[in-house]
């Protein structure tokens, strides 16, 4: 994705890695470490990321952004996945004397002479934990008895007042992670942690130690309750004591999430996770029979047939046996319900006898309920989240099934609201879709109309959607993506999932 400064998050918010960088699955390394299966993935070079650490008090950036490297770390203990972004920030002197430092320092293996920081984040950008090394030795943080304020944490840069009768003022050094895009523009600053908190005695404080990342020794993780914010104890605040880090096997110390954060959802930035779920559903006999009826009826009559995908309850994955109904030659109208009698609609599937992929209005049909279905809206936030996580629309063709899911609801709502609301907007949107699809078909070798439609949708909806394809006769859905061929043409390709 082309990233511009205007599209990046605002300064001071968490940097949502999952929106801007993606794993390079082609160069995944798989191994077992510390009792967990590990997949280590570099950042896809099409959207590089550079980071630096900044002392907010002095404004000093402690490392050139070139001395940073991030990668995705997926850990699986046999039951749950944990996903992290590991960011390494090398001290300048170390990087200078070890030009190949980045390849010598991975999650699996740490250079015995490494000097710098190892920071772990959730894919959504929340700081998890970090470690400092100097000449290969871990730098143990000084005693950390600081407190912090739930409401002011993100604004503080220098001092704060605990909410106690004793109005002690602490001086702290606030450390931020600064993110740069591929053009070197600062795109976000994420608060990491405080160090060197001491009761204020007046005078200058240039806290934070010297001028290298390893001097910004990370404290223990700031564990937070599920609702966010720090844990409040007796009007003060507390932190969970950091257990001794691992890493004695020659690798990097592992991420040390808070007890309430030990399991995070695998970031499905590629769609591989959802593809597996769709493939599993394709093996369901009742669903497969319904798919066959939809396609047979559509091709035999020239009329689009379709069915609502309704669950008997939520959360859950028991599908109702919904009827296959006819539409017209060019449309099939879904019926959304969110009640125990008619079921909980999480998607639609319908036949496209002419072989074309889902259309823009098909995608809009799964977005509309979040704004106009009162049963869903009144069911509360959990129901809404469940719907958003599971909504899909499928076009069934003789070549195979195309399924679209929503990857970014904020983005797609913006697209629908700003570009697909009025009749004039819909006309313009469809013209754009058709023009892009026609151009793809006539500019690409051996193009199919299915791929032409997929290309047009990807151009118009960007990363707000993910499109999957399950070829006829198969039960395996794979995400589709756009790649550039040797001639510089953008073409649709299947993403190989691990």
């Amino acid at each position, binding site marked *: 994705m082309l990233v511009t400064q205007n599209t990046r998050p605002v300064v001071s918010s968490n940097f949502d890695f999952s929106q801007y960088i993606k794993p390079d699955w082609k160069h995944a390394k798989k191994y077992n470490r510390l009792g967990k299966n590990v997949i280590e993935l570099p950042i896809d070079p099409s959207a590089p990321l550079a980071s630096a650490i900044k002392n907010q008090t002095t404004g000093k950036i402690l490392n050139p952004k070139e001395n940073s490297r991030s990668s995705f770390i997926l850990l699986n203990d046999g039951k749950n996945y944990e996903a992290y972004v590991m960011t390494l920030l090398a001290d300048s002197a170390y990087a200078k004397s070890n030009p190949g430092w980045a390849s010598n320092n991975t999650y699996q293996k740490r250079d015995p002479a490494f000097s710098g920081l190892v920071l772990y984040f959730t894919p959504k950008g929340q700081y998890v934990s970090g470690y400092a090394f100097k000449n290969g030795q871990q730098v143990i943080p000084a005693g950390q008895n600081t407190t912090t304020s739930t409401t002011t944490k993100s604004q503080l840069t220098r001092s704060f007042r605990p909410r106690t009768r004793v109005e002690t003022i602490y001086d702290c050094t606030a450390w931020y992670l600064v993110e740069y895009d591929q053009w070197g523009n600062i795109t976000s600053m994420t608060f990491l942690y405080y160090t060197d908190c001491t009761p204020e005695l007046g005078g200058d404080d240039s806290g934070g130690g010297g001028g290298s990342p390893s001097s910004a020794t990370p404290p223990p993780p700031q564990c937070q309750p599920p609702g966010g914010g720090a844990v409040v104890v007796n009007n003060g605040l507390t932190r969970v004591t950091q257990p001794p880090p691992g890493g004695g096997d020659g690798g990097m110390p592992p991420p040390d999430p808070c007890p309430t954060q030990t399991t995070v959802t695998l970031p499905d930035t590629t769609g591989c996770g959802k593809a597996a779920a769709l493939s599993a559903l394709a093996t369901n006999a009742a669903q497969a029979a319904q798919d066959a009826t939809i396609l047979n009826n559509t091709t035999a009559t020239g009329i689009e047939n379709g069915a609502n995908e309704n669950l008997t309850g939520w959360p859950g994955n028991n599908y109702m046996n919904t009827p296959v109904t006819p539409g017209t030659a*060019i449309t099939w109208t879904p019926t959304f319900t969110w009640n125990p009698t008619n079921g909980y609609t999480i998607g639609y599937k319908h036949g*496209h*006898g*002419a*072989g*074309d992929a889902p*259309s823009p209005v098909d995608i809009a049909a799964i977005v509309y309920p979040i704004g106009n279905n009162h049963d869903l809206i009144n069911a509360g936030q959990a129901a809404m989240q469940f719907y958003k996580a599971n909504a899909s629309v499928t076009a069934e*063709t003789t070549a195979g099934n195309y399924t679209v899911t929503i990857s970014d609801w904020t983005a797609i709502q913006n697209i629908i609201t700003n570009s697909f609301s009025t009749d004039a907007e819909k*006309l313009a949107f*469809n*013209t*754009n*879709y*058709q*023009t*892009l*699809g*026609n*151009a793809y*078909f*006539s*500019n690409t*070798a*051996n*193009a*199919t*109309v*299915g791929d*032409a*439609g997929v290309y047009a949708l990807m151009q118009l909806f960007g990363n707000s959607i993910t499109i999957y394809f399950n070829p006829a006769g198969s039960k395996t859905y794979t995400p589709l993506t756009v790649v550039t061929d040797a*001639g*510089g*043409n*953008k073409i649709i390709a299947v993403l190989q999932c691990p």
Partner: protein
Amino acid sequence: MKKIIFLISAVLYSLASVGQQVALNNEVSINIPKEAKKITKEEALAHAGRRFNSDKYVLKSINDRTTRYTYKVNDILVSLTVFDHMAKVKEGFLSENKKGLDAMNSSNKTYTSSLQKINNNSVLIMNYIAGEVEYYRFVCYSPDNSKEMTGVLEFDKIDKNEATSILNHLLNSIKFKD
């Protein structure tokens, strides 16, 4: 009657504008009208800016193209694309995809498409208006369905007759190597 006029104009155009048979790659050649001037992508974009009032659809369409064969014939833009690496498609490939393209374009009332056999080549022709520009797009497969070339003509709708003549001239001159 309209068809007859188009045919006559196509014949007259062909007689008057016999150009040069140009090899686009090792597999296919085509006769480029003598009035055609080869232009760069930048020149094509500049022309679209002037002639098509910077229509956003045509600007994107030109910008996304990677072909080396872009020409200007009076006010009509002609882009031709050939492929060095491609697979043989099955018989009926164009016919099947025509159905899908017709469905995809069903909301555009100006859209028409046709399948033709020209010199034993299979040709799918699409014609439609998007924004301020009218398009002819064609996809042409060799008789054995192993080679493909495509093209697009972008023009103001008042230049339709001339564009039709150029299209016919081009399609009648496509030669695939055996």
